[in-house]
């Protein structure tokens, strides 16, 4: 009768999942916006197809960041102390690094935008390179934040940071594709460029999804317990929203050579992959917290 009096409530709710999703999308949107300057003529100048997206991409990235920052602050029990992770920086905590990189990333976006207004190529290049690295660090640190919890076996897995970076590629591609389609600027060259990234991100996500499946089934007792929780509590989100809608359907769409490069189909596939990216994170974050409640 007292068996469950001792549970202290699971710590992370919706806002953390939304934050993880949006910060990944913001980061990859910036990478796309800065790609023409950062990558220039690499790969035959393919990145130049993103030039029309540059300014609007920076604004989109900044808007997403403007949502993420306050969301993370409001999520704290002590929002007024939001600078403490920087003031009392703790180098072994990924959250400290993330708190440091987040404003720096914002500064890079502003710096890049300023450089583009003033046509300052040097400033754009430096803020573009630094900002792209910081942009990649955003989903990376969110994944690391889970991975360093060695006591939660669903999270303590070196593929999680990689998975989060790849998922942010999907969601970032969705942001770019939707914006450019609505502006009527998703031409064939841009679609080709986005198609390559979306195809890559979906293929890697698919591989990591299978890897997760194998690891959880062949893993320790706690991993098997996590697999049970996923299938009992999150079956629809995991198999329906993540696998079928978020990975398999868009992968099939982009894999068909002519169909996958059609701007509208590509945008649809990107949006579906973003749904999967959200859902995958959601299941991993929640199920990872539930594995211990029977103990």
């Amino acid at each position, binding site marked *: 009768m007292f068996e469950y009096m001792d549970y202290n409530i699971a710590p992370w709710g919706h806002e953390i999942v939304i934050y993880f999703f949006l910060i990944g999308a913001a980061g990859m949107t910036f990478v796309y916006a800065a790609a023409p300057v950062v990558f220039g003529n690499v790969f035959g100048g393919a990145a130049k197809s993103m030039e029309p997206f540059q300014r609007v991409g920076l604004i989109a990235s900044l808007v997403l960041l403007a949502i993420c920052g306050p969301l993370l602050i409001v999520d704290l029990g*002590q929002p007024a102390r939001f600078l403490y992770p920087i003031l009392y920086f703790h180098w*072994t905590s990924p959250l400290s690094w993330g708190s440091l990189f987040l404003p720096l990333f914002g500064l890079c976006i502003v710096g890049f935008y300023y450089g583009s207004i003033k046509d300052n190529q040097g400033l754009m290049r430096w803020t573009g390179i630094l900002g792209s690295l910081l942009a990649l660090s955003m989903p990376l640190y969110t994944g690391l934040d889970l991975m*360093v919890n060695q006591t939660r076996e669903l999270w303590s897995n070196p593929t999680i940071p990689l998975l989060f970076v790849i998922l942010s590629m999907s969601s970032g591609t969705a942001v770019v594709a939707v914006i450019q389609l609505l502006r009527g600027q998703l031409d064939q060259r841009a679609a080709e460029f986005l198609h390559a990234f979306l195809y890559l991100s979906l293929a890697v996500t698919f591989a990591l999804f299978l890897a997760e499946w194998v690891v959880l089934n062949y893993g320790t007792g*706690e991993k098997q317990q996590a697999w049970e929780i996923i299938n009992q509590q999150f079956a629809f989100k995991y198999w329906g929203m993540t696998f079928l809608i978020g990975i398999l359907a868009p992968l099939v769409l982009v894999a068909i050579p002519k169909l996958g490069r059609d701007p509208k189909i590509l945008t649809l596939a990107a949006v579906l992959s973003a749904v999967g990216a959200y859902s995958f994170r959601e299941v991993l974050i929640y199920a990872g917290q539930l594995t211990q409640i029977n103990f």
Partner: protein
Amino acid sequence: MPVGLQTEPSLGVPGKKRWAMVVDLRRCIGCMACVCADKAEYDVPLGVWRTTVKVKDTGHYPNTKRHFMPRLCNHCDNPPCVRNCPTQATYKHEDGFVLQRYERCISCRTCIAACPYNARHVLPKNRDRVKIGGVVDKCTFCNHRVEKGLAPACVQTCLGRSRIFGDLNDPNSEVSRLVARHKTVVLKPDKGTRPQVYYIKPDRAQTEQVFSAPQSYAARSDAQAFYQRNRGSKFFSGVL
């Protein structure tokens, strides 16, 4: 008080103390006096606990058994909560306590996620008598009492003398003798946390996570309700 964030483990180090607890499960009668003493000592709010006694019924009528398992912070020698805290709010004292600096805690709940023993909780923001709120709290091994030569509140009140507290580095202490003489078990040793709460004669159903799943219908129903309440369906996890 010296503040060492990641102090070296003091276990076995001459001249240093290593406070630890032994819980003799042969003596625990499930009276919950330790839980009450702890609630009284710290004015712990409703719904959260610094220490608990987990109760588990096993077997089928008429061959049944009720197991009691006192649980608290394990004051690990390799505490993942300390490593993961972004503000250094939680730290390890050189005598082995894992403590919390309330004035630094931002309540990001990373430490709760990191703790494998479910030993941490969030204090509600608005409290009547105690002003500390909206931060993460945990068992402190009653370090304020220990520094004055007193036993922790839960140990003082334990009427079966199930909970025994002392310095493991002192070979003449009761905890040292118990750990030396008896086969003791720590919780989740495979997690690498090096916990410092030692149990004498626990049941497998209590110490192994996978085997400690709810068994009775009522317990399963409670677990189901807990799942539904805490699967992220609420913003801010419903804790703040």
